């Protein structure tokens, strides 16, 4: 009796082994050509309507055109992308789901400040076309004329100006490094925290706080109400051509400029998948590259203020990992908002 019970599983195991053997024996190219054989999902770890969501939805028809399968967008917001990232880690490595993500700073930040269980290195960037930079700005009604004036007043009395910023953000790191460089005691400055870029911008434009440190892109619709004081970048921005740059500001003040990108957004997969399914990864990479460079895509997305620059995996991963490393280095700055 025991034999008969065991017999079935053994036979099943044999069949399974045979099947697996057959799959392994099948030529890799033949298998690769069947991918993708069902729709691809773009996973956005944010709610509908944000930059990543718009980017994913705008790119979807072009990726679809170049990969030959329908492409749909799914949102899984929450927990500063922890929920979306964790969900993505649980998916099979079959290449049917690709993230559209503000990988930097959200992945490293969620690890440093929300104890997420994945590592920055678990993710692989296909292309990060969009970057957003921290902008220090004040309401035009505030009568603050320059960043030097802000430095002067904060140096004379750290309590003289209130500063609005998001906790656990690249903006906070940039603000902290900037204050450190000027020898301003951050613990004495009146730092007001906002749980989101939107509220921080409203508070800046409404003059609730004197100066706001927050991603510059979101300020564009209310550009007329704010005065850009300092852009945390080393190159001129087309959005804020008149904003002083951190590099120039630092040179004048005599310190080494250091900053992290506010957001690096684009297509992300898991490193695990790249290693396990190199052919499928190559197909995805080719399709996303072709879609990004598609002239129709470039013009459509350009009209929607969405970026379509092709940096490729190598440059994108380098940018992502270096900003993740910087954030890790300054992790303690994040913990004392």
């Amino acid at each position, binding site marked *: 009796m025991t034999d008969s019970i065991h017999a079935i599983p053994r036979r099943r195991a044999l069949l399974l082994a045979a099947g697996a053997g057959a799959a392994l024996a099948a030529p890799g190219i033949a298998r690769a050509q069947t991918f993708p054989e069902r729709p691809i999902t773009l996973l956005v770890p944010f709610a509908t309507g944000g930059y990543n969501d718009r980017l994913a939805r705008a790119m979807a028809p072009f990726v679809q055109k170049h990969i030959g399968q329908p492409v749909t967008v799914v949102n899984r917001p929450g927990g500063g992308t922890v929920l979306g990232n964790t969900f993505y880690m649980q998916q099979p490595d079959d290449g049917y789901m690709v993230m559209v993500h503000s990988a930097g700073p959200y992945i490293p930040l969620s690890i440093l400040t929300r104890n997420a269980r994945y590592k920055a290195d678990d993710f692989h960037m296909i292309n990060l076309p969009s970057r957003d930079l921290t902008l220090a700005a004040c309401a035009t009604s505030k009568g603050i004329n320059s960043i030097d004036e802000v430095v002067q007043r904060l140096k004379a009395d750290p309590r003289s100006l209130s500063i609005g910023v998001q906790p656990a953000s690249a903006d906070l790191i940039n603000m902290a490094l900037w204050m450190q460089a000027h020898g301003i005691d951050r613990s004495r400055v*009146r730092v007001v*925290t906002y749980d989101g870029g*939107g509220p921080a911008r409203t508070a800046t434009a409404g003059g609730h706080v004197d100066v706001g440190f927050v991603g510059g892109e979101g300020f564009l*619709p209310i550009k007329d109400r704010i005065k850009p004081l300092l852009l945390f970048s080393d190159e001129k921005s087309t959005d804020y051509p008149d904003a002083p740059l951190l590099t120039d500001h630092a040179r004048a003040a005599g310190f080494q400029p250091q900053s992290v990108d506010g957001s690096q957004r684009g297509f992300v997969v898991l490193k695990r998948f790249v290693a396990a399914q190199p052919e499928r990864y190559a197909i995805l990479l080719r399709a996303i590259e072709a879609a990004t460079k598609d002239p129709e895509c470039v013009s459509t997305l350009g*009209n929607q203020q969405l970026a379509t620059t092709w940096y490729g995996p190598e440059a994108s991963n380098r940018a992502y990992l270096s900003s993740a490393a910087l954030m890790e280095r300054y992790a303690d700055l994040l913990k004392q908002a």
Partner: protein
Amino acid sequence: MIDFPAFGAALNMLGGSLDAWIWVVPGLLIGLLFGALPGISVSMAMALVLPATLYMDFLPAIIFLTSVYTGAGFGGSIPAVLINIPGTSSAVATTFDGYPMAQKGLHNEALGAALVSSCIGVLISYVILFVLVQPLAEIVLRIGPYEMAAIGIWGLVLLGSIGGSSVTKGLFAAGIGVLCGTVGMNTAGYMRGDMGIPWLLDGVPTIPAMVGLLAASQLFALVNAKFIVADESKRTISLRRIIAGGGLVLGSPVALLRGSFIGVFIGAVPGVGSSIANLISYGEARRVSPDPESYGKGNPRGLIAAESANSSSEGGSMATMLALGIPGGGATAILLASFAMHNVIGGPRFMEQNRDIVYAIIISNFAQALILLLVGTAFVFVASTVVRLPLRYLIPSVLVMSTMGAFAIEGSIAGPITLFVFAVLGWLMSRYGFPVAAIVVGLLLGKLIETELLRAWQLAGGDPLYILEHPVAVGILVLMAVSLGLSLRRDIRRRRALKAASAVA
């Protein structure tokens, strides 16, 4: 302030385009249906249809989305009145008097009153938007943490002890609500009470928690009943009585106008919106009423106050979005996304350069309010057949739908789990005479008050006297203290008079 040439152009734009009109009724119906399903919020209904708008022209797309917005704003009130479960978080205060009315067999009147107050609320809010969009946006932008904290505290004081057998039990329940509302990451980035569960990083999911609390306390109480309306002769569905309910609204113009203004104003404040507006409006209506005890027992004025405020917040948040480009909440964020999908950046420049389009959107919303009156009446007429459904069918269906809604809104099992945990809490609380509504109020207002107070404290750098630099906030708090003092004195006098009367007898 009205640009007449642009107004004319807007009329032409709407008059000459069938596209701009064919989406209104489908939009309203989608909104009504999703709004009425417990757990699907206004912004979620809009998010669901957002991808479809990619294939429309700009104006029809925005009109379609605002139709869904308008429809969902009222849709949430239907289950609030009929089964005491707000379909959206904006309809919480609607349950306070709407459901008692339904229980008395006044469901037709209650739904009629809710519909008419909603339609008029939308109308008034868009009239204000039409005339005062710029000044309103300017005022709203100045409202900082001090003012918001004061408004939130006012709301909590007005409603903290709602519907309970005693004030202490009410305050205890509100305290539990506030505590639950502060779970998750606070605005300064500190985690509290998340117990290591990633689903709690953003706090307790409000809508499943709210549905759980209200549904469970209600449905368990109904276990021995056979129908929502006990008296069989009153279980009628009558168009005449729905219209008569609408008539009630016209008989209370003060409640209607007060609610609409509160709704426009609070709805316009970024990050606050209709779920707070309906509570504050209800609280105010109850405070100024000569007969506050009748509230919560089926006073149509409470229903009118709640409904006019939650609907008029739509116009308020549209004002902030159009004049400043700032999304006040989820719904306007989706509208802005749709703008972006059509290569349009919302904000002051859009308003200046495309005044005709803005007017077309506003005029279309006037029309939507009127069309909602018709579509809504038909919808309500069908929906109110619920009162004829035996509870042994209704209760399980509602539970299943709430669970699915909770799953839909969270996109994970965290929603249903929250629903069940809070259902048990709600049942326990109501079993021992604690007002469940006060927990919901605490849950909704607690987070707001905590966030704003913390920012106020940061802004002051720890100096309590800094509040003196915010006269509006001080004004609100003083007004609150005075009004509390007055109502306390009134209560004491009334009690004395009662005592004297009973002593004489």
